């Protein structure tokens, strides 16, 4: 091996390394730095070891927020993945119908997240909102700022409306990528529509569905803007998810140490769960040709 050539290779990696360093590694190290010190002001800091971690891990409100978060993400995945596959299967395969449904599906994804929250505030207002006043008009009292159940239902509706299209688009792309010959072969074999779905479409979609599941899990686990705008974490703390609670600690109470420790734990949870999902789906997907 020529050593000079090896050194040159490092230069090629350098730009990427610098970008990753500034965008990920340095901010992360800053958070680590904050999480093990008590900072009073510039130049006034005390090393506290793992104290913030202990405090955060023992915080009952964090436990509640975590449980809420799991429930929310679990429901999101259970509803959006099957619904998304279902819609993708029903969508037209070609012609103007295909283009139209793709545009319609993409619309919610193009709206800024905080605007989504605002849209749904207006949409669900009990007095003037299209949905809110309609439900009230039917004689069912509806006010998501007062009822935790209704707040959850509203949030879930918004979330499903906003993000199912992403699953649809991914599943649709996966379906379109299956060669026509598979369906002909199944037809000749006399396979039923259910068999075609189970043995051809689903296995062939496994790749894109893995991505859909990971994206939807991560995004829903990190959800902030929409519930912040729509419910602000209330009524009470009933829709205070992890990121909303984190911002309350960091910005509301200015407890940077515990917030940093919390951030790291949050990060590790997502990393661990994503890895777990990925492993499970990879192992299940060994038959994917």
């Amino acid at each position, binding site marked *: 091996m020529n050593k000079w050539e090896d050194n040159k290779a490092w230069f090629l990696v350098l730009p990427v390394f610098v970008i990753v360093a500034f965008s990920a590694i340095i901010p992360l190290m800053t958070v680590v730095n904050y999480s093990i010190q008590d900072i009073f002001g510039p130049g006034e800091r005390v090393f506290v070891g793992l104290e913030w971690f202990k405090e955060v891990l023992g915080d009952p409100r964090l436990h509640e927020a975590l449980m809420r978060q799991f429930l929310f993400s679990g429901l999101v995945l259970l509803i959006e993945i099957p619904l998304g596959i279902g819609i993708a299967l029903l969508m037209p395969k070609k012609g103007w119908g295909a283009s139209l449904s793709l545009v319609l599906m993409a619309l919610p994804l193009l709206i800024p997240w905080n605007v989504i929250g605002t849209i749904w505030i207006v949409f669900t207002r009990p007095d003037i909102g299209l949905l809110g006043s309609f439900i009230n008009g039917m004689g069912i009292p509806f006010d998501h700022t007062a009822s935790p159940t209704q707040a959850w239902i509203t949030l879930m509706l918004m979330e499903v409306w906003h993000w199912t299209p992403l699953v649809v688009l991914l599943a649709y792309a996966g379906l379109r990528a299956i*060669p026509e*010959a*598979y369906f*002909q*072969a199944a*037809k*000749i*074999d*006399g*396979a039923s529509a259910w068999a075609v779905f189970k*043995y*051809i479409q689903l*296995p*062939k979609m496994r790749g894109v569905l893995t991505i859909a599941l990971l994206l939807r899990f991560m995004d829903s686990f990190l959800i902030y803007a929409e519930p912040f705008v729509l419910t602000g974490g209330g009524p009470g703390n009933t829709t205070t998810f992890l990121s909303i609670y984190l911002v309350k600690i960091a910005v509301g109470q200015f407890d940077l140490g515990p917030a940093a420790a919390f951030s790291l734990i949050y990060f590790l949870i997502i990393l661990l769960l994503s890895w777990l999902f990925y492993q499970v789906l990879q192992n299940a997907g*060994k*038959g*994917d*040709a």
Partner: protein
Amino acid sequence: MGLSLKNMQKKVDGEIHLTDINLDFESGSRNVILGRTLSGKTSLLRLMAGLDRPTKGQLFLDGKDITGMSVRKRSIAMVYQQFINYPSFTVYDNIASPLKVSRMDKKEIDRRVQEAAHMLHLEDMLDRLPSELSGGQQQRTAIARAIVRDAELLLLDEPLVNLDYKLREELQIELQEIFKKRESIVVYTTTEPAEALMLGGNIVVLDEGRVLQTGLTPNVYHHPATTKVAEVFSDPPINYISCNLKDSQIQLGGGVAFPLSGHLKTLSDAHYKLGVRSNHFYLKRKNDEDIRLTVEVELAEINGSETFIHADFNGERIVIQEVGIYSRKIGSEIEVYVNPSRFFVYSDTGQLVISPS
């Protein structure tokens, strides 16, 4: 007894894909459909399978009209260009899948699967998934799936086109053996004349949606009825040299002339097109009767152990195929030889007048 296509036509969006298709396939026969890309081979197979309905015409099986019968009720097996297997099934389950749908006895299924797997040398791979197989093995699995159910109609749509050269040869030989044992009507499409010749049986030459010629494969090869058939059934495509016959002398361009001999003796005075297959041109004189042509080299390519020289003879383009590796300079004039006994003679309108005996 067999499958008959009567006056079939297929139009898609006003565009004619196939027209005037009248064909008969006998039970137990091996049939090759030869045609270039987009000639309508796959459309024809799809019509025969019942995957598409013809715009006009009818399809008969053993004298019974099955034009409108659903695919599920027919007894068909099909192999595709792409390697089509159920991705989550093992090789065993893939081969067994058409039988399971028909609710066959488990022991009988097992016997048939083992037999098909044995024929295609898949015995050691029955537990694997398609993604764990090579391309050749995947296609073997697909072929085993197709032959396992003993369908009345076995359709193969360029099954070997996505395999490498070695595997293709290997499977070509094996397929011939497998087809011999079938009672089904086997229909096999290909773009390659060599593959068609190897498979033998009957041939249908298809071009631009029309049947050009049918018959026994070697017969059609030796007596292509029109210039179009000769082009499709030669690789590289057959070469044409215009000529004029006068006073028992055939006159080519550039002052080349030779007297009538052999099968050419019966010709009467007229303009003709002489067809010569590329492998009948030689760079060296082989016989005393050989005619010498002076041509200008336009391109020389070496493919495997053969040399292809594209050259210009009085404004007509010819391709010389010579076994061995030769280098000829582009733009240089070279001499090539051809024996008159090799000439296919076509009329100016492209009909075969006489072929080499």
